[in-house]
């Protein structure tokens, strides 16, 4: 595909959109450190999230070493194991995935794809990153305080998490809660930017229904996050009160070493309601941007308009709305009123409808497409497969009667890693392979990319597929070791060893990816401005990587949706969004009238 064949015509009426006042960077420090440019902030978010994600990756290897080869590694003791499990979960879900999708891709893509110069409130946007970094640093500090980080599980359930005897029940949990509060405050600042920029700074002609689905995904996820994160904030502050000031929001009467504690009457169930009121939407806060991005990856690399665009938008909105009324399906075994179970099982299964619409539409977009098995496409296909697998096991767990015996077993671990760990991270990788050429001006190395993809995809199936079977055997999760447990079959131990070896191999493959990122930055092939032949605005910038203010002198004008691939009669198989209908180059025709 030859880039830049289309010349955008911009003799539209003078701008009705006021020009933004951009803060101009005066020095290297204000350009790259205290930067107010969304693109730099995006990279800062991305790098910080990756760094803390690597910590969580190392923790997962420690977990696997213990599970696969119990008793072999003396550096992992029972308390340490619980701490690793807790921190691995929390970091991956909140500090890596949420931050990289919204702070990373959101910041980079929203202004570019909407045709804006920058975010609506650049200063607030900068502050958002620095508060996020502070949250990460406080979190990291919790590894080093006396007693270590918290080991009460990533769900932070009281009374356990703040009771003596739980690892990290001193400063560890305090720092975790403070860090979460910072994260939420920082996110809110960024989130305001994402929503307001989409609402107020779209280019002329960029109607809502012409927005790429990537932006729709990020936009809906941000709205959900703004409404759901407060639940975690309230829960975190109340838990801090219970821990430090002796209130009884969540703490019931407890007897510790035959001594009655001062607190009484608090409700652990109340915490669970608050936590999951945030926790379930959180799944979709991570998944919706992934849905949006994958829609664009599939469309671009299959050279086909996305099937059912409006349906895709409404499915995103429906999933977002429904995700607020399913939270208690995480609490079937918590002792809540059993009648609730019926309601929440029903709403949970209803979510399968808009989700299935999306999956069918992705498949129909691929159907008879001119599929190019580029790296972004491979990762998108990997996502499709994995999300489907994880989604199907979700149907099991959504039903109360099936969930009760499977609760807290490895079946659950297998399910959620498939659906909200592997699936979204495959999209993160796909998106990086897709947009890296725009961010750096160079292509990522293909051979290393293929090694990364195949090892990761096959490896994750070796890791998580067997967990479903281990779970059906009744093996509980979060156990340091199974000891002489008679019900744990020998085959489980063999499988655990296999899983652990696979996990180490997959982790090593991520090093290939990181090396590729660094190597290609200096040595990668020159990408040109639009290597994939994509229609969306970020590929039409005058410079690659886009300069400060993105668009040079004039803002782009949009004449069409983002999915004009294989337009009948057009010379190229794509027409960028800023090309008017009457400026499309037509294909030459043979004398007999057939198209060449």
């Amino acid at each position: 595909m030859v880039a830049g064949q289309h010349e955008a015509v911009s003799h539209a009426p003078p701008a009705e959109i006021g020009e933004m006042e951009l803060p101009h960077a005066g020095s290297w420090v204000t350009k790259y450190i205290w930067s107010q440019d969304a693109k730099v902030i995006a990279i800062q978010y991305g790098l910080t999230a990756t760094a803390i994600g690597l910590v969580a990756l190392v923790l997962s290897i420690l977990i696997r070493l213990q599970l696969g080869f119990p008793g072999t590694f003396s550096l992992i003791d029972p308390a340490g194991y619980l701490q690793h499990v807790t921190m691995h979960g929390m970091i991956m879900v909140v500090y890596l995935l949420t931050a990289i999708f919204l702070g990373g891709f959101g910041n980079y893509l929203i202004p570019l794809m909407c045709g804006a110069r920058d975010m609506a409130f650049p200063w607030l946007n900068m502050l958002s990153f620095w508060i996020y970094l502070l949250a990460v640093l406080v979190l990291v500090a919790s590894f080093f305080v006396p007693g270590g980080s918290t080991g009460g599980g990533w769900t932070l359930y009281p009374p356990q998490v703040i009771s003596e005897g739980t690892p990290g029940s001193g400063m560890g949990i305090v720092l975790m809660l403070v860090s979460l509060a910072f994260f939420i405050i920082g996110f809110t600042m960024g989130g305001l930017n994402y929503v307001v920029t989409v609402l107020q700074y779209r280019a002329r002609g960029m109607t809502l229904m012409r927005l790429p689905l990537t932006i729709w995904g990020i936009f809906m996820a941000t709205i959900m996050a703004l409404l759901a994160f407060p639940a975690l904030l309230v829960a975190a502050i109340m838990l801090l009160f219970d821990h430090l000031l002796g209130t009884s929001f969540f703490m019931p009467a407890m007897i510790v070493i035959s001594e009655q504690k001062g607190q009484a009457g608090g409700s652990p169930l109340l915490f669970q309601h608050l936590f999951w009121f945030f926790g379930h939407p959180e799944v979709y806060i991570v998944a919706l941007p992934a849905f949006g991005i994958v829609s664009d990856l599939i469309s671009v690399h299959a050279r086909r308009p996305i099937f059912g665009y409006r349906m895709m938008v409404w499915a995103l909105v429906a999933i977002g709305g429904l995700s607020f009324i399913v939270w208690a399906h995480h609490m079937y075994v918590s002792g809540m009123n059993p009648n609730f179970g019926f309601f929440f099982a029903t709403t949970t299964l209803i979510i399968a409808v808009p989700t299935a619409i999306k999956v069918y539409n992705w498949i129909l977009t691929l159907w008879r497409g001119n599929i190019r098995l580029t790296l972004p496409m491979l990762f998108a296909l990997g996502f499709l497969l994995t999300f489907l697998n994880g989604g199907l096991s979700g149907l099991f767990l959504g039903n109360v009667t099936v969930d009760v015996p499977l609760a807290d077993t490895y079946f659950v671990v297998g399910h959620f890693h498939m659906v909200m760990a592997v699936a979204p991270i495959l999209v993160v990788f796909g998106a990086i392979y897709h947009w890296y050429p725009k961010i750096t001006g160079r292509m990522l190395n293909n051979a290393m990319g293929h090694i990364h993809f195949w090892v990761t995809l096959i490896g994750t199936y070796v890791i998580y597929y067997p967990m479903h079977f281990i779970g059906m055997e009744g093996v509980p999760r979060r156990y340091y070791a199974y000891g002489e447990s008679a019900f744990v079959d020998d085959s489980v131990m063999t499988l655990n060893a296999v899983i652990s070896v696979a996990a180490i191999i997959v982790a090593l493959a991520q090093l290939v990816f990181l090396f590729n990122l660094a190597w290609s930055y200096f040595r990668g092939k020159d990408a040109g401005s639009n290597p994939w032949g994509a229609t969306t605005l970020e590929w039409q910038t005058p410079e690659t990587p886009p300069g400060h203010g993105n668009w040079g002198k004039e803002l782009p004008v949009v004449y069409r949706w983002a999915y004009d691939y294989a337009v009948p009669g057009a010379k190229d198989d794509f027409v960028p969004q800023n090309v008017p209908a009457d400026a499309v180059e037509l294909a030459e025709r043979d004398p007999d009238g057939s198209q060449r």
Partner: protein
Amino acid sequence: MTITLIVIVSVLAVFLGWLLRQSINVRPWVPAGASVPPVVDRLPAMFTTPRVGLIVFLAAISSLFALTISAYHGRMQMAGDWVSVPVPVLLWINSAVLVLASIAFHISWRAAAGGEQKRLKSGLVAAGIFSIGFVLGQAMVWRTLNAEGFYLGSNPANSFFYFITALHVLHLVGGLVAWATAMMKTLRGKDAGKVGQTVELCAIYWHYLLFIWLVLFGLLLST
């Protein structure tokens, strides 16, 4: 969680209604020609960018307070240990002071819009005094309650009383930062028009916090 759900459903309903209007009868796949002026798809002019930013922020705060109220109700019913806090008379006076702060901000907003420098200055001073008065008043309420033996940890009703009043005051103190910026600018003799935007946002924010306070006060009175 019923109250939270009602708030979230209302927020989402506004969003959905707006989205429906944007997406019904639209054919996104039809391209436009260069001769047709491109559609500028914007919210109505009264929704300026800073106002939209504030509205989105207020939606997030609404969720925060709704969740707190839900937790309040939940905890009240869950164990039989709830002993309501007698609402001190001072709380009525504080509420009146907050109403005055809101009115003063409204007057400042009007004054800034009309370019009346002098009224703006006195309005802002009054708004600041009433707001700080409210914060100090709330602190006095906490001291009085504490002195009377209503300690933070001794009953869930007390815990919630301190928690929700502090959460509200904290939001007001955050707003005072914006007020201080506007005040400084005005004292330095900046044009009313330039300060206008900050003052306008402050006024909306104060009205909103007054509304939240009335809801919380009602909650404390009725339970």
